[in-house]
């Protein structure tokens, strides 16, 4: 079972929810944790995993063999991302534009293109809570593309676990889709403000594309207005939990504490939430 934690708006508390849920479940359930926010990964700061393996994340980019190349220009025509250009008597490769789709090499009429991995980030594998798998990715500074890293990170997930928790990047576009398109359940974290509501609606648009089950956690409850709750009750999305706005929570999180360590009552709340989600997924499958 895969549970993804997402939000359109940044800084609503995704990582807070993901890390506290992971820490609450880990002693009892066979879980793994994936931090898919490869541009700004933070879950490891809270769960302090022991990292025992680092692998490069890479994109396969074309290398042209000029002995073979007949300068026909087919690779230039085929590349949808403008990563290849015919300049004089040379095919130029613009590495950072390459998506690694392989179209150019697969379809070169004289097999003059081979593919070489180009590192765009790192995949880090370790464990937390003694032996629970913890995986995260890190985009290399100045590299633009995070989705290939998310895909590679997810291809390293363990299959023999009860539940996988995926901490999503913010936003509502490609990197978010790469994180949660195959999730069984998506927990949307929002705040009760006009920004929170606007970006929650974007995320509900994503969920309707992926077809996942979803529920909402309202964080910083009390800081804004009731528009988010009104919207949710009108549209039939359940409120899974409310986390109040309190200065001790903000301060505790800033210092690297888990929500369940700042307010211990939340440990049971996350365990109950997990049982409820499990039931809902079960119902969805058997009804």
């Amino acid at each position, binding site marked *: 079972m895969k549970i993804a934690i997402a939000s359109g*708006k*940044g800084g609503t508390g995704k990582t807070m929810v993901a890390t506290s849920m992971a820490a609450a479940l880990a002693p009892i359930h066979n879980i793994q944790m994936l931090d898919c926010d490869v541009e700004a990964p*933070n879950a490891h700061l809270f769960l302090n995993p022991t990292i025992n393996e680092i692998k490069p994340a890479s994109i396969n980019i074309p290398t042209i063999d000029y002995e073979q190349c007949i300068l026909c220009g087919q690779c230039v025509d085929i590349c*949808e991302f403008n990563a290849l250009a015919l300049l004089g008597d040379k095919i130029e490769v613009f590495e950072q534009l390459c998506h690694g789709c392989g179209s150019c090499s697969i*379809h070169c009429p004289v097999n003059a293109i081979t593919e070489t991995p180009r590192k765009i980030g790192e995949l880090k594998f370790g464990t937390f809570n003694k032996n629970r798998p913890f995986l995260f990715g890190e985009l290399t500074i100045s590299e633009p593309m*995070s989705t290939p890293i998310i895909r590679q990170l997810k291809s390293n997930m363990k299959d023999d676990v009860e539940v996988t928790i995926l901490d999503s990047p913010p936003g509502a*576009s490609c990197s978010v889709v790469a994180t949660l398109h195959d999730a069984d359940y998506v927990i949307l974290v929002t705040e009760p403000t006009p920004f929170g509501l606007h970006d929650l609606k974007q995320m509900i*648009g994503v969920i309707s*594309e992926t077809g996942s089950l979803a529920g909402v956690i309202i964080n910083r409850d009390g800081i*804004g207005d009731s528009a988010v709750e009104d919207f949710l009750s009108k549209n039939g999305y359940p409120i899974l939990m409310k986390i109040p706005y309190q200065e001790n929570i903000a301060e505790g999180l800033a210092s690297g504490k888990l929500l369940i360590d700042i307010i211990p009552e939340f440990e049971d709340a996350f365990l109950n939430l997990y049982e409820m989600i499990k039931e809902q997924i079960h119902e969805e499958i058997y009804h």
Partner: protein
Amino acid sequence: MSSLNKVVKELVILSGKGGTGKTSITAALVHLASQSPTKSIFVDADVDAANLALVTSAEHLEQHDFISSKLAQIDPERCNLCNECYEVCRYDAIELPTEANPTYRVIDLLCDGCVSCVYSCPQSAIKMIDQQDGVWFFSSSPYGPLFHAELFPAAENSGKLVTLIRQRTKQFAENNGGHPLIIIDGPPGIGCPVIASSTGVDLALLVAEPGLSGSHDLRRVVQTLEHFQIPQVICINKANLYKKGVEEIKYFAEENNIQIIGELPFDTSIPKAMVQSKPVTVFSPNSPASNEIKKLWEKLQKILFD
């Protein structure tokens, strides 16, 4: 026109971590700019989660479709089930035939828009179809003109959309004059849309939140901007929530030779202003946050124009 172009400066607001206060501070800055000789045009470059229009009472003057990506589509009539498309696709975007659905199909959400399958198909049964990925707007507001956009949920090419609206903003500034500054509200993170938001700007203002996550992500955005040789300054937000974190940011800034030009306290007037859909400097002009943002604005003008 080129001399005029040099007069128009660009300022981008970034943070690495989301939710540090980029948009609230941007809204206040554009309000202050409208009250000063340094009039601004402003841009919401967080096209995944565009919120600047919500707090600037923006009214759409123009709306344009953003058509950018392409998705493959298989014609079931022509498909001979040879499996070539499935073999070449690296995005798991080709769905195999099932009993219920005996044809090959493209999973739109996973298709990256490369044309590998199109070229591989011996039946020429696959076509690329243009997609509308979002809309962009030119709007007016009491604080100046605004360019902004909404990427459709689950769509691609946010970086291209950011580049497009920045180009339109620059053209507008060059053609019309009277706006010496472009203020860009940036997205979180350090990837494609952040790079598109900050390429070639004159200054980046980083809104830093004290704490472990805030410091970690600040470091990454600083390194990214250094790579692209973009001058940067820092403003600390929610400073009173975690004193130790403030010290860490100061130490980091000094080590990296980045000036800290503002320190805002956590102030409930900021969420209250947001709920009222107003910049904090309009909603509560003498609140602690507003007073600090006014000082910040004075310093920014000096750095940009002196």
